[in-house]
């Protein structure tokens, strides 16, 4: 008892004192715990297009290829379920650059015990494309393989698109042969991160598409509830889903002992949703979490924690905070837009259709304040939508600065002066635990409400999965998002951010035919200078049309226990650098 009291007294004294670095034996050496803020929305590889979901998928399912170390280019690929990386030199890429042959590895088993076959791989590629939910990842493969970003046009299935997809993906002996509509250099990097192998038989047994041409349309563009539920996963990867806990949103993965390579060093991986930063910090301090999500504003609090290391200088391919306006808000049962009218008590569903409203919002963002308060002075305001390191990166000065006078000027012009006269009310929604998004909402509220007492912005918080659901249903007037590269090409930024079939525009209801045309032209242009000029033009149009406002980017880092070994940062890995490919990791 005396010992406990003494310990308590010491702890009280130490609780406020800075901790000294100390080496410690790994706690729960075969279990890895990641404490974060976002709960996954779906574990269906054809549905999921958010990092929280995909980081789980990437550990349970496997792709044809994988990246070596931190590399992100085609030359950095290594075979995974395919036995070799196709190249023109090994003859697995045809001379015209359109046909790719993947020899499928033998002896690989799904977690239900069934063997992987080339037919499963073909099925997975087709399912990934033809599933094609609005705003989903299908366009990543549809574009290069079928030559169209969607299976639908104006809400209707494009005639013959299914046949085209089926003709493009075939099984020949041990090989899966994919014929692209046109040469597409990043194709291999896409199959290294998307369309993992799924068992055709298992999917059909769980009410999913059976892989037949005659039936695909019935399974196309489903609702979330029609995709595989979060309790079902069956991949060939090193971990299998033990449980998704709906009340706590916790994901538990266990080692797949029948894995075709050496089984993983870790026995369990637990992904916990802990919204409170203080609790996450205490968890890593106590060794109950191995990695935690730490927003930049809290970064100083974890520096120097005993047994905790911060991996700095991680060069990411990301636009970390973007403000996207919804052009056609879904008004049905939507409290985010109040009365649904421009009567001072709400906004009409097409409120952001007026360019002046969008510009007014863009001028109301205190970019430097955000950098100072949230990024602790370490970031820079983004001048464009393409990150550094890629063709088309726009350095220069950003189009918008914080300027209340200009914001007022545009608000006065908006909706023929009615916005200024009547005022408006709408909700700014952010996902729980995201301190940067929360602070940005608070800044916007303060800055805009100051312009006119009739302007009112309510701030609301929702869980990440609900956030995704509401954006998909176009219920968010403004979406605060980020975009991490699926593959290292500017097309993977301008397409999802600006093309009418892209991830954000489908959720915003935004369409600009001129931009669509230029984006298509740019991705088909091989000359780098011409391509750069096209991306400059695209970003200039986007600056004026302002469907999206890039805010600022800060440095990337990872906060982990010192006993975590084997982590390799790859900027294309979902939720990197926080999440990991757990097969590489062990604790010592």
């Amino acid at each position: 008892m005396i010992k406990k009291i003494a310990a308590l007294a010491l702890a009280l004294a130490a609780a406020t004192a800075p901790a000294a670095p100390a080496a410690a034996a790994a706690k729960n050496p075969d279990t890895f715990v990641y404490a974060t803020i976002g709960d996954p929305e779906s574990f269906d590889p054809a549905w999921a297009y958010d990092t929280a979901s995909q980081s789980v998928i990437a550990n349970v399912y496997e792709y044809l290829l994988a990246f070596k170390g931190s590399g992100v280019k085609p030359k950095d690929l290594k075979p995974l379920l395919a036995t070799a990386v196709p190249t023109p030199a090994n003859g697995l890429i045809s001379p015209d650059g359109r046909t790719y042959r993947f020899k499928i590895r033998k002896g690989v088993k799904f977690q239900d015990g069934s063997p992987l076959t080339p037919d499963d791989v073909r099925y997975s590629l087709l399912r990934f494309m033809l599933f094609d939910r609005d705003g989903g990842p299908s366009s990543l493969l549809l574009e290069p393989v079928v030559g169209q970003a969607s299976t639908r046009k104006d809400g209707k299935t494009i005639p013959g698109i299914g046949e085209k997809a089926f003709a493009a993906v075939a099984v020949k002996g041990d090989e899966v042969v994919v014929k692209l509509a046109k040469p597409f250099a990043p194709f291999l990097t896409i199959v290294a991160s998307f369309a993992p192998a799924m068992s055709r038989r298992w999917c059909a047994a769980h009410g999913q598409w059976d892989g037949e041409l005659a039936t695909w349309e019935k399974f196309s563009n489903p609702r979330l509830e029609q995709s595989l539920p979060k309790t079902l996963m069956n991949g060939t990867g090193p971990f299998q889903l033990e449980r998704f806990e709906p009340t706590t949103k916790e994901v538990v993965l266990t080692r797949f002992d029948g894995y075709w390579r050496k089984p993983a060093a870790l026995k369990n991986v637990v992904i916990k949703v802990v919204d409170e930063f203080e609790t996450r910090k205490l968890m890593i301090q106590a060794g109950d979490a191995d990695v935690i999500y730490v927003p930049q504003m809290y970064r100083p609090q974890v520096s120097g924690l005993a047994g905790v290391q911060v991996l700095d200088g991680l060069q990411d391919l990301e636009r970390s905070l973007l403000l996207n306006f919804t052009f056609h808000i879904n008004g049905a049962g939507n409290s985010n837009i109040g009365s649904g009218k421009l009567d001072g008590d709400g906004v009409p569903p097409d409120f952001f259709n007026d360019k002046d409203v969008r510009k007014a919002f863009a001028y109301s963002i205190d970019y430097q304040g955000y950098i100072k308060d949230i990024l602790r002075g370490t970031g820079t305001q983004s001048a464009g939508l393409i990150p550094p390191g890629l063709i088309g990166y726009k350095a220069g000065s950003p189009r918008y600065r914080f300027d209340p006078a200009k914001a007022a000027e545009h608000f006065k012009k908006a909706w023929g002066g009615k916005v200024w006269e009547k005022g408006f009310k709408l909700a700014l929604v952010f996902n729980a635990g995201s301190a940067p998004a929360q602070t940005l909402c608070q800044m916007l509220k303060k800055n805009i409400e100051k312009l006119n007492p009739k302007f009112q912005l309510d701030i609301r918080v929702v869980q990440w999965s609900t956030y995704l659901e509401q954006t998909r249903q176009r219920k968010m007037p403004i979406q605060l998002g980020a975009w991490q590269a699926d593959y290292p090409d500017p097309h993977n930024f301008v397409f999802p951010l600006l093309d009418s079939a892209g991830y954000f525009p489908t959720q915003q209801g935004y369409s600009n035919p001129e931009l669509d045309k230029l984006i298509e032209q740019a991705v088909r242009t091989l000359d780098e200078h011409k391509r750069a000029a096209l991306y400059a033009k695209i970003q200039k149009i986007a600056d004026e049309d302002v469907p999206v406002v890039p805010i600022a980017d800060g440095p990337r880092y990872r906060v982990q226990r010192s006993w975590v070994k084997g982590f390799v940062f790859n900027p294309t890995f979902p939720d990197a650098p926080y999440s990991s490919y757990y097969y590489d990791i062990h604790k010592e």
Partner: protein
Amino acid sequence: MLKFILKRLAFLPFVLFGVTALLFSCLQFLSPEMRAALYVKDPRQLSQLDAVIEKYGLRKPLPVQYGIWLKQVAHGDLGYSETAKMPVADAIRSFFPATFELTLVTFFPIMIVGVFFGVLSAVYRDKFIDHLTRFVAITGYSLPSFVLGLGLLMVFYGRLHWFPPGRYTLDTDMLVHSDAFRHWTGLLTLDCLLNRQWAAALDVAEHMVLPAATLLYISVALLLRITRSSMLEELTKDYVRTARAKGLPERVIIRKHALANALIPVVTLSSLLFIGLLGGVVITETVFDFPGIGRWGVQAAQQLDIPGVLGSTMLAAFLFVTANLISDILYAVVDPRIRVGN
């Protein structure tokens, strides 16, 4: 006594009717589209809002709507909670046991500490123990629970690594979700004991220490002060003076005479306290990452999840009414004049 209880029980449906009618009326400020979520059990139905509105008469007069809704509630259909991603009834079933367990382990220590030290501070008025309990009461009453909670976490978890947040560790997590584990009561500590999993029971109990301690400290303050003032009042009454004059020992006067009378306001307060804890201790559950009904309720409110808010509010109202009934009965047990008066 039985007549008294029956009378009170007969009154219960009317109170619940009033509560539900009030809650339902408040919802009329929302559009039919927003209220539609109250009638669905499956989110797929929400994509056909018009059909739901038509089916449940959400544009019809209030009494008609209320009748339909009441019928739904009677069948256990409380709508679909977007926050919990499950029907409200399932959400209550999932979240309530954790809060109930935390309430149980917190409530009895609160009662014991509150009454015992409240009596002591009255008996030893202006002595050291009185000053000490006053200090505890003032700090407990004025200290925000998140400050106390975080402080306790920093010391007992961050530094000493004794009591972690959450519900249990991974080993227990695996165990309670295994097929071999039987969920007899829904109360995890008890279930672990019934499954003869001693280490798991200890683990679950350890996870409740800090939230329970936080709740104890912030909740005991009022009970201390009420017990003290009630006891002081009784100790100055004529019957106590008479008892003393007759030469009764002081402890008999305190235990058998004054305390019984002093407990009447304590009974009321304790039932309210119990309900307050059961209704969910929002901040404490959030700070300690404890998956209880309070945390869900506040998330539902933040996200304007109407069925979630209504479900948790109805649960709180039901508990409140039931606790009031129990406290009325206890009143009558403690003070026979009450049942005679009725």
